């Protein structure tokens, strides 16, 4: 290809990219930079009172803020529970259903994917009803079975509230990983499985030494997206508990929202955002590293 022709092709390529590039830069790159920049300011977005540069002031304050520490611990509990559970559970379900005939497989796909496509408000309202202190189904069932004597205030008791949130998060998080695992397991080269069987591998050995290695890229993707989703758990908190009772369900994401949009401390909120992004980045990098070593 001549240089002139190549140049012409490059120009038209960039022109095609331009609309999405403008959107990406305007709504993703610039806000990210602004977020980092304003995290060094005492910013309140009020045009009458200019932002004051305070250096690492917001970052220092964060580690002295007990609510932020509590939110960080809660967030790590959510991530620590949901990531391994979602991966293990979705892999188990997928490995059971992926060989089923098409109709049955589609049925299970729908069952597990339904909470993902259903609006989070609708899902949350149903769960709120199930967790209800007076007429919720859980209290009804547990009392009926004689496990509890009096009703439990699931979302109002600091002992249970976070776990209730985690349970909802799990039901809405397993759908996509199951679909991904079903597809990954179906795509494992059957001749590798057969070769291992002929070589003398048991079913478990075939899974662990062949299939598991083949679906590793999917596992890595699931780990990363589940980690990010868990770190960013917000809608459930906002709709069910608003971080309460007594910050028992406070997460970093919700605290960012609360600080920035309720208290108008944008600089402080953005500093939390930066810290959250660093944690997500570190954890994802660690997952990539471990997967690569395997």
């Amino acid at each position, binding site marked *: 290809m001549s240089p002139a022709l190549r140049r012409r092709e490059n120009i038209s390529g960039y022109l095609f990219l331009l609309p999405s590039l403008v959107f990406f830069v305007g709504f993703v790159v610039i806000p990210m930079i602004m977020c980092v920049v304003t995290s060094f300011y005492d910013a309140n977005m009020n045009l009458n009172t200019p932002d004051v540069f305070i250096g690492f002031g917001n970052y220092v304050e964060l580690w002295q803020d007990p609510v932020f520490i509590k939110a960080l611990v809660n967030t790590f509990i959510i991530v620590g529970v949901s990531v391994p559970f979602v991966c293990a559970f979705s892999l188990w379900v997928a490995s059971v259903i992926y060989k089923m005939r098409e109709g049955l497989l589609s049925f299970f796909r729908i069952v597990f994917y339904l909470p993902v496509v259903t609006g989070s408000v609708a899902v949350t309202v149903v769960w709120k009803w199930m967790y209800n202190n007076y007429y919720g189904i859980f209290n009804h069932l547990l009392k009926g079975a004689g496990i509890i004597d009096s009703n439990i205030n699931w979302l109002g008791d600091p002992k249970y509230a976070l776990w209730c949130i985690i349970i909802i998060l799990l039901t809405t998080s397993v759908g996509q990983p199951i679909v991904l695992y079903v597809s990954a397991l179906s795509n494992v080269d059957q001749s*590798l499985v*057969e*070769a*291992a*069987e*002929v*070589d*003398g591998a048991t079913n478990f050995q075939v899974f662990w030494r062949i299939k598991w290695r*083949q679906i590793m890229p999917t596992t890595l993707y699931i780990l990363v997206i589940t980690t990010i989703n868990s770190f960013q758990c917000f809608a459930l908190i906002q709709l069910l508990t608003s971080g309460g009772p007594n910050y028992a369900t406070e997460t970093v994401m919700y605290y960012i929202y609360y600080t920035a949009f309720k208290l108008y401390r944008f600089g402080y909120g953005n500093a939390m955002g930066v810290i959250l992004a660093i944690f997500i980045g570190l954890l994802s990098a660690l997952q990539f590293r471990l997967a690569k070593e395997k």
Partner: protein
Amino acid sequence: MSEVKLVGIKKIYDNNVTAVHDFNLEIKDKEFIVLVGPSGCGKSTTLRMVAGLEEISDGQLYIDGRLVNDVAPKDRDIAMVFQSYALYPHMTVYDNMAFALKLRKTPKAEIDKKVREVAEILDITSYLSRKPKALSGGQRQRVAIGRAMVRDPKVFLMDEPLSNLDAKLRNQMRAEIIKLRQRINTTFMYVTHDQTEAMTLGDRIVIMKDGFVNQIGTPKEVFNKPVNLFVAGFIGMPVMNFFDNCKLLKENGVYFAEIRGVRFELSPFQQAALKQNGAESCEIVCGIRPQHITVGEGELTGRVEVSEMLGSEYNIHAVSGEDNVVMVIPTVGLETDVSMGATVNFTTMPELIQLFDKKSGNNLIWFDKESAEKNHPVCKSYDSL
């Protein structure tokens, strides 16, 4: 000792499609058997049933006298080389070859010794630390064979192992397999759709079509004594010429084959065989191999359409009446004009003419229905072929 015996083996899939009909075969210890046939003939399915990767719908499979119908692949003491090589992509060549031995908890030192020994034989020692993706097709093929070899299996199964290689490499690897076979001296079952591979590798060849065994014999037998039109057309390169609308004539107890009005008095052997079979005058299809045609003499004529000079011989494609005829003629001493458009006379020796019944397609000389039914009852279905 590693004999394999297939008795009335059938494969019927869930959708009621029968992939293999009543397959009967006794493979002797250290014999190299090749299953050959077009795509969908059931040869790979048969091999996979022997491997235990496919359930046997009916019949019995014995390996070394033990009924193995319900025995898992890992307990059959077989090794298999797959068409796609099926090398574990996340393992090095060494680990691929050592995998089966590790699963059997073989001591490390012994694994190392065996892997290196086999790698030496296959000339892949320098690739032992590489992953399969860093190897060429031929090298991968060697690793796949090596992986099977380290196990010293009773039976070596190969499912079209050369079909993913280019022509040159395929020829090379074919020679390697012949050498390998002499070295490891075990029982082989080899599946291919390439009749050249079948002819060059097999002690005996099983020719299949539509799930039926058509003929079992040595390469020489299936080439010289094809039992029906399918076998005659499948084995041999270029394929056998078939002349439609020929006649078998019996006059005063003497048999003649009439091709396009030209009579050939059949050889004493053919006369005797036809007499024994009680053949009468009838319409037949005559088959003549391209290598068995002589040009420049005889009464049959053909117009040359394409003339391919291949160095030591000519491949001549001619039209004789309604029939297309291919002739392979040595270039040395050729005095006839075989250029495009030329008309050539040609003939053959009567004993080289194959006579097929027009209705059933069976060879009037070589098809022995009684023996065929005894050895592989599927031949009953020849009438419908």
